[in-house]
C-alpha cells in the first residue's frame, strides 16, 4: 500500500520568451521563495530533501547540479538532480516520501532557453552519435516524419492538428503566465511556413523561460500544513526504443505504457470516466492527439474528431491543455512537465482565475522528453 503524497505549495515565475533581466539563479530563487511561502515552510527547517530537473547542455554548463543548492535553500541538505523531464522529479519525490526517508520535499525545474543561441543544433547532439548525428540533419525532421506516420495510421488530418494549435493558443490568452497566447485560425496555421513537412510553423511550440517549484508532502504533514492539498494519486514513466531505426513511429508507446503505470498506481480502471481534464504534451500540434489516444483518453482513432467537435475545448466535455499547453505557454525544456502539473494543481485548487474549469476533481499531466527522445511521464492528481 502506497503512502499518500500531496502537493502543498507551488511557486512559479511568469513564462516569457526572453528574460534578460534575471539569471537562472534569480529565477530559481523567485519560484522557490513563492512555493515555500505558499506552503508555509522554511527550506532550512522543514524540507527534508530536494530534487531538481535540469540538463547540462541546455544550460551550457557541465554538471549543472553544482549550481542548484544555493538558490533554493538546499545548502547542506539532501538534494539531487535528475537530467530528465520534470514529472520524473515529482515521481522521485513520491518515491522518497514513500520510503519514509522524507516527509516534505521540494521539486524544482526551470528553463532559461533564451540563453541558447542555436537550440536546434544543440538538440542535434542528442542524436545517435554513430548512426544519425553524422548525417547533419536538423533533428526536428523526426517530428515531421512522425506526424506523417501518425496521420497515415489514424486518418487524422492536418486541419485537425491545426485545430489543436488554434485551441491552445486561444486558451493561453486567459493565462496571464503564458508567453504565446494568440488568436489564430486553422487557415493561419495551414498557411504558415512549412518547417518539416507536414509540420508548419504554427504547429510547433516555441521555447520560453521560467521557473517552477513545488512543495510535496506526506499525508500527515499535508493535512497539518495545508488547507487544500492536491493529492498525487499516481505516477508513471517509461523509456521506449531510443533509436530511430527501431521505434514505432505512429503510436506514442511511451505515453501508453507510462499511462498504464500511472493508472495502476492510482487505481484508475476507466481513465475516460474517472479523469476530468488533462494537460498533455503538445510540443507539436499532432502530439496532443497522439498522446490523447495513447493515454486512452479517447476511443482509438477518435482524437481528431474529438478536437473537431470541440470536446477538448475549455467548455468541452474533456478539456485538454486549458493552460495553453506548450503551444500557448511556451516550451520550457525540462520544466515543461512541471508546468503541466502546475496547471492541474491550479485547476484542482480552484485557483486558475479566468480559465477555471467548474467541478473538476481528477486531472492528468503528461510529458514527453522531446525530439529525438522516445520517453515520457504521467502524473495523476486529485483534490479529494
Amino acid at each position, binding site marked *: 500500500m502506497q503512502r499518500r503524497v500531496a502537493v502543498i505549495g507551488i511557486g512559479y515565475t511568469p513564462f516569457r520568451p526572453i528574460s534578460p533581466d534575471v539569471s537562472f539563479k534569480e529565477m530559481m530563487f523567485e519560484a522557490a521563495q513563492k512555493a515555500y511561502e505558499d506552503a508555509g515552510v522554511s527550506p532550512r527547517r522543514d524540507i527534508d530533501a530536494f530534487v531538481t530537473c535540469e540538463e547540462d*547542455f541546455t544550460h551550457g554548463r557541465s554538471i549543472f547540479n553544482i549550481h542548484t543548492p544555493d538558490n533554493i535553500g538546499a545548502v547542506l541538505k539532501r*538534494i539531487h538532480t*535528475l537530467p530528465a523531464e520534470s514529472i520524473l522529479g515529482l515521481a522521485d519525490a513520491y*518515491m522518497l516520501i514513500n520510503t519514509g*526517508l522524507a516527509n516534505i520535499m521540494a521539486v524544482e525545474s526551470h528553463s532559461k532557453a533564451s540563453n541558447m543561441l542555436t537550440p536546434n543544433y544543440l538538440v542535434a547532439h*542528442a542524436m545517435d552519435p554513430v548512426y544519425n548525428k553524422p548525417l547533419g540533419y536538423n533533428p526536428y525532421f523526426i517530428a515531421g516524419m512522425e506526424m506523417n506516420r501518425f496521420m497515415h495510421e489514424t486518418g487524422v488530418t492536418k486541419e485537425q492538428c491545426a485545430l489543436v494549435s488554434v485551441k491552445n493558443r486561444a486558451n493561453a490568452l486567459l493565462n496571464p503566465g503564458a508567453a504565446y497566447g494568440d488568436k489564430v485560425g486553422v487557415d493561419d496555421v495551414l498557411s504558415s511556413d512549412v518547417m518539416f513537412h507536414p509540420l508548419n510553423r504554427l504547429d510547433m511550440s516555441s521555447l520560453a523561460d521560467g521557473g517552477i517549484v513545488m512543495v510535496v508532502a506526506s499525508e500527515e504533514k499535508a493535512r497539518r500544513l495545508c488547507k487544500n492539498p492536491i493529492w498525487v494519486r499516481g505516477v508513471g514513466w517509461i523509456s521506449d526504443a531510443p533509436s530511430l531505426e527501431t521505434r514505432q513511429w505512429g503510436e506514442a508507446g511511451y505515453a501508453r505504457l507510462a499511462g498504464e503505470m500511472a493508472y495502476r498506481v492510482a487505481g484508475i480502471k476507466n481513465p475516460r470516466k474517472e479523469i476530468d481534464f488533462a494537460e498533455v504534451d503538445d510540443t507539436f500540434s499532432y502530439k496532443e492527439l497522439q498522446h490523447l489516444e495513447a493515454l486512452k483518453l479517447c476511443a482509438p482513432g477518435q482524437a481528431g474528431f474529438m478536437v473537431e467537435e470541440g470536446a477538448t475545448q475549455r467548455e468541452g466535455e474533456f478539456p485538454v491543455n486549458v493552460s495553453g499547453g506548450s503551444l500557448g505557454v511556451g516550451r520550457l525544456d525540462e520544466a515543461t512537465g512541471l508546468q503541466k502539473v502546475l496547471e492541474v494543481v491550479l485547476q484542482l485548487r480552484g485557483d486558475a482565475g479566468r480559465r477555471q474549469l467548474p467541478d473538476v476533481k481528477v486531472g492528468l499531466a503528461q510529458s514527453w*522528453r522531446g525530439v529525438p527522445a522516445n520517453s515520457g511521464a504521467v502524473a495523476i492528481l486529485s483534490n479529494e
Partner: protein
Amino acid sequence: MRKVAVVGAGMTKFMRRAHETGKELAWETSRMALNSCDLTLKDVDCVVMGTAPDAFDMIHMKHEYLSDGAGAWRKPYVRGFLGGGTGVFTACQAWYHVASGLFDVCLAVSEEKMSSCLPHPQGAFVTCWDQFTESPLGTSLLWFFAWEMNRYMHAHGITEREIALVSVKNKKNAIEHPCAQLPGEITVDDVMNSEIMAWPVKRLDVSPTSDGAAVLVFAAEDVAKRITDKPVWVEGAGWCLDTMYIGQRDLYYPKYVEYAARMAYDMAGIKEPRHEIDIAEPYDPFSYKELHNAEGLLLCGKGEAAKLTVDGETQRTGRQPWCPSGGALGVGNAIAATGVMKVAELFWQLRGEAGGRQVPGKPRRGVAQAWGDEMQVGTVIVLGV
C-alpha cells in the same frame, strides 16, 4: 521501511575502450550483472542510470541514448546526476526505487566513456564553475584539488610523503582486481618523483581517466531471498550538497560528506562508525581524497587519517581496510562507474567472493562513498550482511 538487498553485480575492465560504444558497454555489463544472479530482463521492473557529464561524449541527454543498452526498453528509467558523486547515488536511487514499494527489482547501471573527450576530459570541466567568477579563470579541476590538498596538509601538518602512501597502497590492492587499469607496485619515492601537475598534486597522486561500466541488481526482501542465499542489505543511504561558492568554505574538511554519512549511519543505526564498520571504500580520485573523505565518513578524527595509513591500519589486512578494491587510483576512475564499482566491491567482500582481494575475518558491514561537483557533494551507502 521496506528492506532492500543487492543481489547481483557486474563490471567491465576499466581502460580506454575504443572498441565499444557507451551503449554496448552498458549492455555487456547489465547482462553480466543479471547473469550473476540468474535473472533476465523480464524480471527487471525499472532501471536507473548513472553517468557523468554529457560533455564527456558530447551526447545531449546521454541517458536517453544509452537506455536500450541499459535494458530499459519499455521500462521506467531515470538518470540521477551528482557530478562525481553520481555512482554511489545511483545505488541510493536504486534503493529508493525498490524501498518505495513501486518496484521489486531495479537494475542500477553506470556507464562512463571519457576517452572520447579529446584532448582530455578536463576540458569538459572548464564549463562547470560559476560563469562569472570562476570559469573565466580557465581553472582545471587539478587546481581545485591542489588548493584543497594544500589546505588539508597545512591544517593538520600532514606531509606529501604520508599522502603518497595512499597511492602506493591502492595501486598495490588493485593488482588482485581483474578489472584494474593501473595496478602496480610503486614506492613513495616514485610518487614524489612523478611529474608535478599542480603543486602539491603529482601525477601518481591522480587517478587515471577510464572507460567502463558497472551494474548492480537491487531487489526487495521477499524477492531477494528467492534469488540468492547471500543477499547484501542496504542499511543506509545519504547524500548531501554544500554551497557552490567554494570561497565560502574551509576546504580542510568535507562537512558535506559528514552530513551525508550521518544520514546513512542514522538509517543504519550506526553510532560509532570507527568500530561498527569493517571495510570502507572512500572515493579516492586523488590520493589525499581518500584521507579527506575517510575523515568526513567519521572513520577517524579530523587529521588522523594519515597516521592510520602510515600505521598500516587501512591496508587490506589492517584493522579497517580502506579501498581494498584498489579504488579509483588503482582500478581506474570512470567517474560514475567507479562509484558503482565501490558498492560492488562491498557486495563481493561481504559475500566473501572478492577472490585475491578478500579482506580476512568475514567483514559484516561496509560503507562506500563518492564525492564530486565543485568539492561539494557527498554520497554514501552502507551495506551489511
